């Protein structure tokens, strides 16, 4: 890699400081994006908890000596949510989204653009452990293989509010959040709509784990001030913010085939391991490496064995 590419890399890395400040110091555009445009950015919103914590990734490489130039992008954008059952004890949320997954490397070439709606169903408030469900309907265009697919998915999951239960922000002895996981079980169907009526459908089971092994504890202290009436009041203030520097994500999906006219690959497994470093302890922008093995769901289930390295962005 030439020196200018290293400079570009360090420029990109150093520039994240303008994104990664605390809320009070964030640039106006970022606040506009979050609060006014109501846009969220992740690696994917593909029928999973939208806050699973996997950031969008961008990686660009250019080697003029060897004439190698490639771009890898995994980007999902979610727009404003719409809610049904507003006066009931349950709730249904609809989330429009678009996703772009491209990889210009020869061996793993892909260019998929998709759009659709995610659905989240919360049947009741959870007291200890309760169910919730999610699904999606998407149209996807694969520009490399010229394939148009209609995808439907529905999963059941559980959410708990005790240590080590699914979905709970499990804390260590210093009260720092370090672990969260979600199991899913459900049904997926993929219908090729540009040629004939080819369908593949699966019973799909999935586990996602997010682990933060390196954290720093927030420090709280009490401050006593004298009021106008001469009476002392005591407040809690934060002397130092907590920080999280290293994120490890692991995801395993197993698809048990039910019908296989379309992909014709039988049962399929998919492993995704990620390691992200956030130098200033705010999990917004950092550097990450990811390893994927198995049948790639964002690339027509082609068999893949991929390492990738890049900037990680989560808004």
């Amino acid at each position, binding site marked *: 890699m030439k020196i200018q590419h290293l400079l570009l890399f360090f420029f990109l890395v150093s520039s994240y400081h303008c994104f990664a400040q605390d*809320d009070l110091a964030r640039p106006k555009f970022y606040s506009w994006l979050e609060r006014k445009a109501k846009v969220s950015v992740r690696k994917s919103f593909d029928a999973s908890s939208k806050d699973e914590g996997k950031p969008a990734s961008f990686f660009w490489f250019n080697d003029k000596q060897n004439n190698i130039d490639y771009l890898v992008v995994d980007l999902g954008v979610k727009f404003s949510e719409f809610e049904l059952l507003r006066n009931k004890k349950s709730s249904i949320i609809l989330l429009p989204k678009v996703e772009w997954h491209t990889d210009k490397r020869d061996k793993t070439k892909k260019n998929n653009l998709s759009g659709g709606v995610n659905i*989240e169903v919360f049947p009741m*408030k959870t007291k200890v452990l309760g169910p*919730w469900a999610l699904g999606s309907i998407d149209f996807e265009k694969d520009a490399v293989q010229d394939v148009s697919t209609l995808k439907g998915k529905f999963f059941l999951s559980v959410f708990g509010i005790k240590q080590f239960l699914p979905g709970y922000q499990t804390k260590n002895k210093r009260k720092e959040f370090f672990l969260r996981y979600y199991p899913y079980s459900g049904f997926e169907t993929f219908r090729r709509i540009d040629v004939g009526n080819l369908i593949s459908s699966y019973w799909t089971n999935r586990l996602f784990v997010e682990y933060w092994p390196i954290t720093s504890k*927030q420090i709280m202290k009490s401050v006593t001030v004298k009021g106008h009436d001469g009476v002392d009041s005591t407040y809690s203030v934060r002397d130092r913010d907590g920080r999280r520097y290293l994120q490890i994500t692991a995801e395993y999906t197993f698809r048990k085939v039910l019908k296989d006219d379309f992909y014709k690959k039988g049962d399929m497994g998919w492993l995704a391991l990620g390691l992200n470093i956030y130098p200033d302890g705010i999990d917004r922008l950092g550097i990450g490496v990811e390893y994927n093995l198995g049948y790639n769901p964002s690339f027509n289930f082609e068999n893949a064995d991929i390492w990738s390295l890049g900037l990680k962005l989560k808004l």
Partner: protein
Amino acid sequence: MPKPTKAEVTRYVLHQISQLSGLAEIDFLRTDVLAKQPLYFDSIGLANLALTIRGYLQQKEAAKTLLVTEVRKPGLTVSGLIELVYAKFS
């Protein structure tokens, strides 16, 4: 049913945040964002918090309901949630 006071609403909301986050009330501030440190509610946790408070509003016969999408609003703080819930009674 009489409208609860701001102090009652505040106590209820702080208690629910404490219960659902696993942090004592002295471990988070009114200025803390629900989805960020140290509370770290994710979208599913925020939905559960919203449904819990919605039940309280129905029990107290509040004039308006609380939406999951309101509680998931990016940047919503503890004090912002207290104000939001209290406003449902007017």
